[in-house]
C-alpha cells in the first residue's frame, strides 16, 4: 500500500524538497500552497498523513489542524507540523490544536521519513 502524504506549505522550495524526498521514498505526494487549499483538498486526497507549515497566508497551520480535527472530516490521521522553531511554546500550541508531531526545518530525508514512519506505522 502506498502511503499518501498531503503537504501544505506556501513555500514552493519546501514543497519541492518534500516532494523529492517523499516520492523518492515511495510515498504518494500531494501538496497545497496554503491552509485553505489544504483543507479543501483533504477529502479528495484522503491522505494517510498531513504535513503542514505554520506560517501561511489565508489560513495558518494551527487553523489547518483545527479545521481538519474539528471540521466535517473530524479526521484522526496524523498531522505533522513543519516548523523552523523548536520552542516548547510552539510545540504545545501545535499539540493543543491537535498536531500529532513536528519536524524541524531544515529537515533531512532520514529524519523526515522516520517521523512519518513513526506516526503512520508504514513506509510505503
Amino acid at each position: 500500500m502506498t502511503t499518501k502524504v498531503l503537504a501544505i506549505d506556501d513555500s514552493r522550495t519546501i514543497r519541492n524538497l518534500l516532494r523529492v524526498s517523499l516520492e523518492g521514498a515511495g510515498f504518494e505526494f500531494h501538496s497545497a500552497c496554503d491552509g485553505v487549499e489544504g483543507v479543501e483538498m483533504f477529502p479528495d486526497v484522503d491522505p494517510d498523513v498531513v504535513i503542514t507549515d505554520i506560517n501561511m497566508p489565508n489560513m495558518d497551520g494551527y487553523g489547518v489542524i483545527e479545521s481538519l480535527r474539528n471540521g466535517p472530516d473530524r479526521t484522526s490521521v496524523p498531522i505533522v507540523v513543519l516548523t523552523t522553531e523548536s520552542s516548547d511554546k510552539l510545540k504545545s500550541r501545535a499539540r493543543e490544536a491537535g498536531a500529532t508531531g513536528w519536524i524541524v526545518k531544515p529537515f533531512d530525508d532520514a529524519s523526515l521519513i522516520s517521523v512519518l514512519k513513526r506516526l503512520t506505522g508504514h513506509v510505503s
Partner: protein
Amino acid sequence: MSGNSIRDTFFEECEELLEALVEGLAAMEDPNHDPEVVNAVFRAVHSIKGGAGAFGLDRLVHFAHTFETVLDKVRSREMDVDEGLMHLFHRSGDVLTDLVEAARDEREPNGTTEAAVLEDLESHLGGADAEEEFSFDALTLDFGTPMEITPEERQFEIRFKPFRTLYDNGHEPLLLFDALAEIGTLEVKADLDALPAFDSFDPMDSVLSWTMTLSTAAEEDAVREVFEFVDGLCELTIGEAETPAPAAQPDPEPAVDVIAEADSAPKPADPAAEPVAQTASKEARGPKPTLRVDLDRVDRLINTVGELIINQAMISQRIEELDLPTAAQLSNELEAYKLLARDIQEGVMAIRAQPVKPLFQRMSRIVREASDATSKQARLVTMGDSTEVDKTVIERLSDPLTHMIRNAVDHGLETPEQREAAGKDPVGKIKLSAAHRSGSVFIEISDDGAGLDRKRILEKAIDKGLVAADAELTDQEIDNLLFLPGFSTAGSVSNLSGRGVGMDVVKNAVQALGGRVSITSTHGAGTTFTIVLPLTLAVMDGFIISVADQTMVIPIASILETIRPNAKDLHTIGTDSQVIRVRGSYVPVVNVSENLGLVPPERSGVGVLLLVSTETHGLTALKVEDIHDQRQVVIKSLESNYGAIQGVSAATILGDGKIALILDPDELVKLDPASVSPSLSLDTRMEPQHA
C-alpha cells in the same frame, strides 16, 4: 527534479518573496495599514529563512532570523514602528536581497552594510531575545540504532495511560509500541481494569492503559524520545527496573484490537464545525496559479503568430485579386479569420507582458541609496504598478530608470534646508508612474524639486561648445540640451550620478526600444521626464506609404498630423529647401525619398506631408508621395537579416508578400542637411556626420 533545479526554484521563489517584502514594507509606511501587511512581511522573511536553511545558507539564515525576530515583535505589538525602525526594515530588506543574490551567484556578499544592519537589528532585541528561539536542532531519532554492541542491557518499566486527546491528535499507541520494540525487547501488558460495563461504554473515551517492560541497551533519553510527540497527552512513567523481571506473559494482541476499535469507532460529525471550514474555503486565495514557460518557446510562438498574420493578409489580398462572384460572403469569413488571428496574437503578446511593479519596487532602493549618499530626504511614490509591459522592455528599462531616479534625487531635489526655506516639505517626493495610453506605455519620473536651472544649462552647453555663444534657444530647446552626449549638469561631479553616464545614454536606450523621452520642468515646482514606449516590440501600427514608388511603413505613433498641402502652401528657401506654414509657424519639409537616396518619380507633385516631432530637429514635415492604408505590421529586424540602414528601423512583410521598410523619422531627418533650421546651429554641431 534534480537538486540544482530545486535550488533554482528556491532563488526564483526568493525573488518573489523579496518583491512581496518590499511591497509589504512600502504598505507599512501607511500609518493605517492593515495588520495583515506585517504578517505578509514576516512570512516573506520567514520563508526565505526556511528555504535557506534547507540549502545550508547559514549566513542568510542568521540574518533572516534576526530580521524576522524584530518583525515578530512588531507583529505581536511588543514594539511600535517608528520612522527609524521603518528605515532599518528597508535597509534590512536591501541586505537580505544582497545576501540572496550572493548565495545565488555563490559569491561573498558585500558585508559592510550587513554587519551594521545586523547590529542595528540586534540592538532592537534584548540580549536574551536575540538567540532565544534560534535553535535549529535537527531532529535526531535513534530508530534502528545498531544493537550489535550491547554492553549493558537495562530494563525499563513504562506505564502509559493515554488521554482521549492522544487519539484525537492522530496518535496510535501501537505505533509507539513498535517504536519501542525497535530499540529493544518489549513486553506489553494491557490494563483492562478501567473498562466500564458494556452498557456505559463510551467508544470515544480512553480507558485503556498499558504497562511495558523494555529490555534495551539504549539510554533513558532514547526511550523518552519515543514519547516526545505524546508528551502531555498521556500519563507516563518511565523507571529503570531494579532486577530483570521474569518473562511476563506478553499479550499485546487484544490491546491492539481494542485500540483499533476505539480508533475506528463512529465519529459523530459536529455540525457546528462545518460552516467554519466552508467559510474558510471561500476566502481569498493566495497567488493565482501560474505556469512557468521557457521564454524561447513564447518567442517562437510569437514569431509563428506573426507569420500567421502575414499569411492571413496575403490570403485576403489574393482572394481579392481573384475577383470571385461570391466574394462578399467570403470576405465576411475572412474578416472573422482576421479577428481571430488578432486575438491569438494579442493573447500571445500578453504572455510576454509583465507588470512594471518589480521594476518600480527596485527603484525605492535606488531612492534610499541616493538620498543617503546626497544627505537629501526623499520618498518614492509609485502609481500604475500593475501596468503591463513587454518583458524585454522592462529588462532594458532598468538601467535608464535607475539613472533617472538617481538624477532626480541628486540634481532634481533640493537639500532639506533649501526645501524648508522654500516652504516645502523637507522630504522630497519622487513620483514614478506607468500607464497605458492610446496604444503606448507612458512612464513618468517626476520630482518636486526646484526645476531645471535653464540659465546654468545654457551656460554649460556654451562652455562645452555644444551651442553657439549667441544662440537663442526656447525653454524646450534648452531642456533638451540635457540629452546631448557628454552633457552633465552637476557643478561638481558627485559620486552618485556623475558616473560618466549622461541623459544621452538614457535617450539612446529608450529609442532602441522604439520609444522616446521628453522633459518638462516648472521653476520651483519640479521636473518630469516622460518615456513613451510601444506596448510590444513585435508588432506596430503603421501607415503604408509610397516613397519613390516603393511601399514603406511609418509608425503611426510618431505622426502628429497628416497634411495634403496645396502647392502654394510650400515655400522654397535657398536653392531647394522647403518649409510649410502650419498654424502660424514655419516647419521644415524633408523629402523622404531624397533623404534615403532614392530618385523621386517625375510626377511626385506636392504629395502628402506627415508632421512628426523629432528629438533633434523639433517639428518636421516628412514629404511622401501618398498614404495608402493604416495597418498593424509585424516587425522583422533588419540588422539580423541584412544590416543597419540609417533612417530605417526594421522591415515587415506586407499582404502581397513583399518586404517593406519601416522608417525611423528621427534618424531620417538627420540624414538631411537642409532640414537644419537656421536658428538651431547646435544641430550641426551635434550631428557633425551630416554636414
